[in-house]
């Protein structure tokens, strides 16, 4: 059935179209001229507007901040995170736990692939330090570490950065604030599904 449908649809399309569209001019990927501190500040501001909890810190302060934020919580960690971060927590490595088992964790800690200032978005390409997609979905709190050099200004820059991951067939998750709905009288409620809170550690340059 499907192969007949395929032939029929393709035939109909070919009859309907020229097959010789004008060449598409793709504008060059914009390169930001703004100082990186400004872009970082914009990212922090916009992410916070999406009700992410944003903290800026130096790299050396990550373990302490993690310990403080996640004290007493069972934290799941994907492979690829620095040992010092894991040591600061009651952490369990991801070893392929079932979805039901994942519900027993209160938080997950990851890094990201790129962050986009203009939209306050972090993008996970689920490479090292980011884990399977379900890890950042089932536990109620997601803590994500974003380094200053990972923050780009615009969506097209972010998309360009992700080309390699996508070409390699890796999935992506774009996250702008915690899960939210506005379905009931347009009033925004966080955490319908997915994590109820998103904590972003923005690591500033220096040291």
């Amino acid at each position: 059935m499907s192969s007949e449908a395929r032939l029929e649809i393709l035939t109909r399309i070919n009859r309907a179209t020229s097959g010789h569209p004008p060449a598409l001019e793709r504008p060059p990927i914009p390169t930001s001229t703004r100082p990186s501190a400004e872009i970082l500040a914009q990212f922090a501001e916009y992410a916070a507007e999406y009700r992410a909890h944003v903290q800026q810190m130096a790299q050396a302060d990550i373990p302490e901040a993690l310990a403080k934020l996640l004290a007493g919580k069972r934290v799941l960690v994907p492979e690829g995170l620095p040992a010092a971060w894991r040591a600061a927590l009651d952490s369990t490595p991801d070893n392929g736990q079932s979805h039901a088992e994942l519900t027993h964790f209160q938080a997950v800690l990851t890094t990201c692939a790129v962050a986009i200032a203009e939209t306050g978005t972090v993008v996970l390409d689920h490479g090292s330090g980011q884990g399977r997609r379900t890890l950042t979905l089932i536990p109620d709190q997601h803590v994500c570490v974003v380094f200053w050099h990972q923050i780009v200004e615009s969506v097209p820059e972010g998309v360009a950065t992700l080309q390699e991951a996508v070409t390699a067939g890796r999935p992506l998750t774009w996250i702008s604030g915690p899960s939210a709905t506005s379905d009931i009288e347009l009033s925004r409620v966080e955490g319908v599904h997915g994590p109820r809170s998103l904590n972003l550690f923005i690591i500033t340059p220096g040291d």
Partner: protein
Amino acid sequence: MSAGGIRPSQPFPDAARETLQDAQMRRNLRHATTTIREKRLQAVAELPYWEDLRTQGAAIKDVVLDNLAEHLLTLEASVKRLGGHVHWAQNAEEAQRLVADLVAAHGVSEVIKVKSISTDEIELNAALEARGIHATETDLAELIVQLAEDRPSHILVPAIHKNRAEIRELFRRKLGAQLLTDDPKVLAEAARVYLREKFLATKVAISGANFAIADTGTVCIVESEGNGRMCLTLPEVLISVMGIEKVLPTWPDIAPFMQLLPRSSTAERMNPYTSFWSGVTPGDGPQEFHLILLDNGRTDVLADAVGRETLRCIRCSACLNVCPVYERTGGHAYGSVYPGPIGAILTPQLLQLDDANANSLPWASSLCGACYDACPVKINIPEILIYLRGQITPHKTPNVESIAMKTAAWIFNESYRFEGAIKLARTGQGPLVQHGAVRALPGMLGGWTSSRNLPPFPPQSFRELWRKEEQREQ
């Protein structure tokens, strides 16, 4: 959306007369559209290059449409290369059967669904039900609509016609939830508890697709709640139904759309969650993926040089929120899963201009042009409306004249008018009106008056009346 299909059960004027009675719905709808409208203007104003983005979005879509076969073949090859399966469906029945067969092959009778207008278009839920398969909608609004056995009224916020008290009552009745208040937080929590169990236990999920990238085989779902992510990653099997027009050539082409869609749709800089996946990823997410490419009238639209740009639509619903007719009548009046201005041009075209009820839709407009200004991919909706009016010939729809005249009468009574043309007509109304009737309309409306008279135009402009009306209802 849960129920649906695209065949209106009655002509627009009749349906609109019914929905206009519903004051509650109108208030809810007005609240929604005004809020989103204002937010959207802000979100758009933040990007100084918004107009360039629109141009770019339209250009990419046009190039895709003009070489659609090649892009679909590339997409098919890419998805297969990455371990997915691709199927083609010419119409709703074929798509229904494909999905039902796939579900049945896994021996399950329960599936979960991500909100998807293409599956509503093909009336998938009912078709599955007929095969003994129950599909649970997981988007909060869709769940509300489904539990209420109602129809969605808006592409984006399908339950916008329901207020919190109604929803509380519904959840109490249908989910047996103990709800102390009707605070949206409490209501959302009840849905979370109910659905979480489904997410963890259900083996097969069904979704639509917002975009698919041909050269990388990457499919994309844009959402807010995370129910999409749940459906797309927890089940073992994922079936996605996608209109053939949703393909994009290369990965960088997604960029303008990820800027255009959220700002036009929910008026946000970005929606909370977007998922991209390419075929199957070992050890992560569903290990079986099926992509169903749906025609269902789209190749007919493609074959029409004027109507074709309708297929650029990215279903953002911006045109609904700015449409004065939609704001008054609500989505149900359009009788199709595609309401508002886009519905007025898409629905009759998908039905090959063969459906008398759908053929009344191109008259459900004031031609004020607001939809065109709002559309992120620059679909010239007013132009297509006028074009379709010309295409809808009496032999296809014997009663079209009466429908058109009824619509016109209704529109004139309600003071919605063909604003562009009428502005002109009103200033020059004197010479047009003879013996208390309009004998000849100028320009494109001339055809109407060549064989009949129209009542004269109301003395007030649409905007004047509108403002008054607004004050009255507040």
